[in-house]
Structure formats: structure tokens, C-alpha cells
């Protein structure tokens, strides 16, 4: 286990990148580089990171980066992995780095295919629960009740459970994370690096622009997502499900912070009614019963 103090000082996400103030994904990306080092090839489909890396002739990313079509991160990674194997370059890690739209919606086919083919790579979904780059439109990862520009009255459907969809592919490693818990995130990335096969990490990355909160609150919002139980930190290693701290203490409902604490901070939930909150609470309790079942094997 690594602590924040032990993280390497090297930075591969350089100063002057073009992310919004308070951008959750850019914090996660910085931690990713600290966890994995620079012997990696990053594959980035259309997403906020298209912008974050900066425009030609500049880049803010100091590892080789392949920009690729929106739905194709996992397919491009498949090709790169195959080529590296043919060239005998076994010490380079290929990492797909895609947003929630590029993962749970338009990119799900290529990702599912790559996982089924047991492609030897790490795929990361950095999830800001909307199409952020295009101006906050609803995605399959947008939660129930959230405002987006295409759900002006709040989304009426629930968030797609992508980590469990990936777990159903029987891949060796699935994990969830949030940059508000940086050591958890870094340790999961490092663990993933040592495993062969398809490894999937789904990172909830708060987005002040889309979630409508003050940019100084990104870490706090992420922390509340976990503390309320709305985002659970867990890993599924070779099929074995385990809740990670602090989520492992939240099986006890009394230990979860009220969901209202999380909603109140964010303008996107302003339209939630009392009934909406009750409904979300009911689903949340249901989810945790499922985690209990999974954790007990």
C-alpha cells in the first residue's frame, strides 16, 4: 500500500493543461501517471482529455498518446497490444483512458469485444456522468434525477452499472475508485498493472462544470459520493468481490451519510423532489444489499 507522501514526484501531466478549474478527471489522470509511471501508451478517444492535453503543436501529456475515434479506445488498444507483443516489448503497459460516454454508450461494443478477447491492457473509464466536452448532455452513466442539457427536468432513468457489466466478462480485475481517495486509486492502478489480461477501473470523477458546484469543492463532492454510499469503492479480483475502505464500513446503513448532503452541493440535483430522493434512497439500499451478497461470496 502506498500513501500520498510516498507518491513519486515526477509529473507526466504537465502544467498548463487545458482542463476546467476543479476538473476531477485531470486529478485522476495525474494520479494515474504517478501510479503507472511513463512506460505506458495512453489511448484517448474523443472526451474531455482531448481538450485537457492541449492543441497541436503542444501537449500536456508526457507519455506517448494515441488519440482515436470516440467509440474505439479498446479497439485501438487491441491493435497496439498485438503490435507490441510482436515486437517483444513486454514491459510497456497499454492504457485506454475514456470518458463515460466513450465507455458505457458509444464505446461499449469495442470494450466488450476487447475484454472477451482477453486483451492484455488496462481500461479506465473516467466518469463525470455526462458528455462534458460537448456541454453536459445526458449519458448512460448520468444518474437518476440529474439535470443535463438534454434532460432539463432531470434524467428519468438510472445509471448503467458498467463495472458489473465488465465483471460479467470474467476479466481478472474490476475496480471502482474516486480521486478523492487517492491512495485507494493509486493502489488499484498499481495492482492492475501487475495483472495480465483485461483490467477495468471505473473512476467517478466529479465535474464542477457539469455538476454545477463550486470548483473548489471537487474533492469534497467525490468524498460525499463515497460516504453517502452512492458510489461504492470495491474491487473484483479474479471474481472475488471486496469492498474497500471507507465503503467496507457502509454495509451498516447507519454509517452512511444522508444522500441529501451530496445532492445539496450540486446544482444538477436542484430539481429533485422528495419522492425522487425517497426513490433514490430505496434503490441505494437495494444496491447495498447486493454488495452484501457479493461480499459474502
Amino acid at each position, binding site marked *: 500500500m502506498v500513501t500520498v507522501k510516498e507518491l513519486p514526484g515526477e509529473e507526466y501531466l504537465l502544467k498548463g493543461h487545458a482542463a476546467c478549474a476543479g476538473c476531477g478527471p485531470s486529478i485522476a489522470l495525474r494520479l494515474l501517471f504517478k501510479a503507472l509511471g511513463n512506460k505506458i501508451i495512453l489511448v484517448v478517444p474523443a472526451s474531455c482529455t*482531448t481538450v485537457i492535453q492541449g492543441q497541436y503543436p503542444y501537449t500536456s501529456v508526457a507519455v*506517448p*498518446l494515441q488519440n482515436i475515434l470516440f467509440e474505439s479506445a479498446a*479497439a485501438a*488498444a487491441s*491493435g*497496439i497490444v498485438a*503490435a507490441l507483443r510482436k*515486437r517483444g516489448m513486454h514491459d510497456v503497459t497499454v492504457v485506454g483512458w475514456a470518458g463515460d460516454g466513450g465507455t458505457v454508450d458509444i464505446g461499449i461494443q469495442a470494450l466488450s469485444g476487447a475484454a*472477451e478477447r482477453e486483451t492484455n491492457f488496462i481500461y479506465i473509464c473516467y466518469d463525470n456522468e455526462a458528455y462534458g466536452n460537448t456541454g453536459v448532455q445526458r449519458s448512460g452513466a448520468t444518474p437518476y434525477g440529474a439535470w443535463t442539457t438534454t434532460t432539463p427536468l432531470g434524467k428519468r432513468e438510472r445509471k448503467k452499472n458498467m463495472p458489473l457489466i465488465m465483471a460479467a466478462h470474467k476479466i481478472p480485475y474490476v475496480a471502482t475508485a474516486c480521486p478523492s481517495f487517492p491512495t485507494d486509486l493509486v493502489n488499484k492502478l498499481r495492482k492492475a498493472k501487475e495483472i495480465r489480461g483485461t483490467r477495468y477501473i471505473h473512476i467517478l470523477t466529479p465535474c464542477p462544470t457539469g455538476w454545477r458546484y463550486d470548483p473548489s469543492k471537487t474533492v469534497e463532492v467525490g468524498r460525499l459520493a463515497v460516504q453517502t454510499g452512492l458510489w461504492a469503492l470495491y474491487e473484483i479480483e479474479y471474481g472475488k468481490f471486496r469492498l474497500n475502505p471507507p465503503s467496507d464500513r457502509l454495509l451498516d446503513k447507519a454509517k452512511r451519510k444522508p444522500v441529501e448532503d451530496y445532492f445539496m452541493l450540486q446544482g444538477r440535483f436542484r430539481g429533485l423532489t422528495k419522492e425522487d430522493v425517497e426513490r433514490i434512497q430505496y434503490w441505494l439500499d437495494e444496491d447495498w444489499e447486493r454488495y452484501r451478497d457479493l461480499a459474502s461470496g
Partner: protein
Amino acid sequence: MAQTIIDTANHIAAYAAKAAKVKVIAAYPITPQTTIVEKVAEFVENDELDAEYICVESEHSAMVACIGAAAAGVRTFTATSAHGLALMHEALHWASGSRLPIVMAVVNRAMGAPWSIWPDFSDSLSQRDTGWIQFYCADNQEVFDTIIQAYKLCEDEKVFLPAMVCLEGFILSHTYSPVKIPDQREIDDFLPPYKSGWILDVNHPLSHANAVSPEYYMEFRYMIQEAMENAKRLIPQVDKEYGSRFGVEYGGLVEKYKCEDADLLLVTMGTMAGDAKIAVDNMRTEGLKAGLVRIRVFRPFPTEEIRKLAEHARMLVTIDRHISFGAEGFLAAETKASIFSQKDPPLFASFVAGLGGRDVTFETIEKIARKSAKWMHAGKVEKETSWVDLRG
């Protein structure tokens, strides 16, 4: 040792990929392309070809996986047809924009709806503007030779573009004929190991294909245009070098048949040329000086060759296995555009034929030639675009 084998053009395409020693194949099955990817899979499984075979879940992923592999430094191959090619469309742009020398066999098949598995050029010609070099083959031998030539051309630093090698479904894809496969060492000598303009390299990190402002975008486009112009110059050279080593030449960008003294020039692509040659011979016995121009390379388009050939002809007639709805076939449009700036250009007529696999026999072509000759003698074309053998 060189050997002659009797096989289908699809299998021959697979033999060519093997001879080119491709390192990554990413492919998805579609009729009538399937026997290419089956044969390549067999080569890989039998260790006859030292390559990774990625059984992707779609053609879109096939092309993107080839992009990834080519970017990571190895020679790649794929093949598709019709709807598979259409699904790749976006990725075709990405491949050429990334300047990656990917070679793909396209087994031409008509586009639906309604479903058709039979050949025409509507699939590959719809990809005309994607920045891919396009070869069109007339027989099985040419399929083999062109795939090898395509790698040589695409990996030239003056080009660094992808190429599709097109062959008509069933007419070639499933038809057996003898093909000479040169000695592997001689192929290796002709085609050196993979070369590309850039590579994903952890020791020299770069961001590839990141966003570009209007300040730079046009220059990147112009470089592709220049590469196409370079390809136009290099294709005849590559063809000639191949010919001097292996004894088969195709005339570079266009194949000419009895053009020198021809009054009426038929312009076609692909296998139709075989029947067109018979038609030319028969027309000549009837006293019509006919000739044939087979466009072997549609991108870059051989404008200069056509212009030169048109200098002495009285009439040019295109036969298109394709239609751009609301206009005419692309072969017609581009041939006509080539001669437009000429002083005193020849007469011009175009014919649409053979869509969705309808047979175009030498008799069909003779009918086209006779009708055109009538207009030529009258000095007036009565109908600029005619559809051949339509049901009433």
C-alpha cells in the same frame, strides 16, 4: 522458389498478405470477403505466418485495431466488403489522416437496401474521398501483385498513406485461376521490413492526432494531397520495378489496349476489362477503331494519362459499375472532368452497367460501343448517361 498455384482471388489475397509478412491482422467476416480472413487465420494457426490475428467484433474495430497496430510499429492487413467498408468509413479517414500505411483488400459488393451479396463498385467508390489510395484489379494474378506493390508504395516516405486493393466479389473472389507466387526471398528483397513515418514510442513520447486549430489543419490536408501526387508518380515506378523482377506489369495507373489509333475509347475498371478487350477486337473487325483504357488506380486519379489518351480519340465512353444517385457514375464524372480543360475535347458518353452483379458480357459492351459509334459519326451524343439492359 517461385510456384504457380490455382486458387481463388480471395485465397490469393491471403497468400499476398503472408508473402508481405504482415504482423497484425484485424478482421471481421462478411460475404464475399470471408475466405480471405479464413485463409489468413489458417496461416497464422499453422505458424506459416508469424502474426497476431485479432478477431474483432466489428469492421469499425478492425480498422481501428489496424490503426493502433500500425501506429505501434508493425505491418498490418485487413479485408472487408460493402457494409463492412461503410461501417469503417470514419476510421478510414483516421487511418489516412494519421498517415499510416495500412493495406486492405476490398472485395467489392453492392450496398443495400435491398440486400445484395453481388458485386459492384458502390462500396469502395463511396470511400473515394477518405484519403486512401485505391487499386482495382482485373484478375487473380493482379490481386497478388498489387497487394505486394501496395505495401511497397504505401511505406514509401513520400507517400505514407493507406491503400485498398479492390477485387470484385465472386467474379474474382471465388473464381479459381493460376497465379504465379514469386520466391519469398525475392519478395523480401523487393519489399523491405515495415516502415512508417512515426511510431508510438515510450522513449520518445508524443501526442498523436491531437486537436488542431484552423491555423494548422489545412497544411495537414495539403500534405495528404502532396502524398497522393507523389503516389501518382511512384505507382508506375513500383509497377515497373515489380515487373522487372517478377515479369508482370500492369501499366502503372492505367492499362491500355489498342489505344494508339483508336477513335472510340472505352474506359472501364476491374474485370469488365476482360470482356471489353473481346468487344474491342470484335468492333475492329466491324471497322470501328475501338480501344480500351482500364483505370487501375482510381485514387490518385490518372487525370494526365486520360488527357493524353484523349488527345487522339474522337470519343470517350465510360462504363461504370457504380452510380452516384442524382448525378452519374464517378468514373464518368472524373473522366469527363479530366478532359474538360482540353482544347477541342472528344465527345463523351457514359453508361451505367453491372450494378448488383448483373453480368456485363462482351456483347453488352459491343452494344454500348455500337451505340456510341453512331453518336460519334453523327458528331452528337444523344444521351449523356444511359443505364444498360434495364428491365422495361
